[in-house]
């Protein structure tokens, strides 16, 4: 596929991610920090986010499926997930975390389990979207083009 088409496809895809609320302005901030001294910065940070989140989701599952749930521990994990998702601009994940923390405060196990399912869904959705975004970038570079700026 011709470079111009690849670039257009990339920009269209990226723009829907913002419109559908998967990503917010913080993701743009991340992209703006990428430069010649750290040309893979966005990929590196997002990879850290993936690793961190999957560990947290497993921990949350373990903690919430105990007989006696330690809600403080659940809250601490959700707080972490909320923080890292906010840091990379994963807006929908962050928003579910806000609701999740309310369920923790109410010590509502059912509510928490529901939130866990939701946050897990949102996480895997955004992960998939970001992986697609990175793949589109790679295609452009492989074709000899440069990745267009979104701002």
């Amino acid at each position: 596929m011709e470079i111009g088409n690849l670039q257009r496809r990339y920009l269209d895809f990226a723009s829907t991610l913002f419109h559908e609320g998967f990503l917010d302005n913080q993701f743009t901030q991340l992209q703006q920090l990428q430069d010649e001294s750290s040309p893979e910065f966005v990929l590196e940070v997002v990879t850290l986010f993936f690793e961190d989140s999957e560990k947290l989701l497993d921990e949350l599952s373990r903690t919430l499926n105990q007989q006696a749930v330690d809600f403080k521990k659940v809250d601490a994990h959700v707080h972490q997930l909320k923080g890292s998702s906010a840091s990379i601009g994963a807006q929908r994940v962050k928003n579910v975390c806000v609701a999740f923390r309310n369920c923790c405060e109410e010590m509502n196990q059912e509510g928490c389990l529901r939130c866990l399912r939701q946050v897990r869904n949102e996480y895997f959705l955004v992960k998939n979207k970001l992986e697609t975004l990175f793949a589109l970038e790679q295609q452009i570079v492989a074709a000899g083009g440069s990745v267009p700026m979104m701002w």
Partner: protein
Amino acid sequence: MASSRGGDGERQIHVLAVDDSSVDRAMIAKLLRSSKYKVTAVDSGKKALELLGLEPNVNMIITDYWMPEMTGFELLKIVKESSELRQIPVVIMSSENVPSRINRCLEEGAEDFLLKPVRPSDVSRLCSRMR
């Protein structure tokens, strides 16, 4: 603007960043390096104190508030109570906007309090506060 002199006579500001989140550590380190600061990033207050004990040539400490084992506030207190370390400005970062927490930190001697996610404009603001 004060700065530390390295072995080769080059003036470079050295910031110690403390955050248990790997994502946030990468972010704050990048933000600071983009402003040409030398950065050492550690994941706990304990490691921060170990480093400070070995290498007091740190011009600023920037720490997350909520960390397991030792909070940023506890780290702040220890630094301000130490005769060797107390002149190092300490900046606290937090994802939560809690006025009582902010006040407590400022009263304990924090130089500034930044809300996460930290922006480049927040980092430029800190420039004048370096020792």
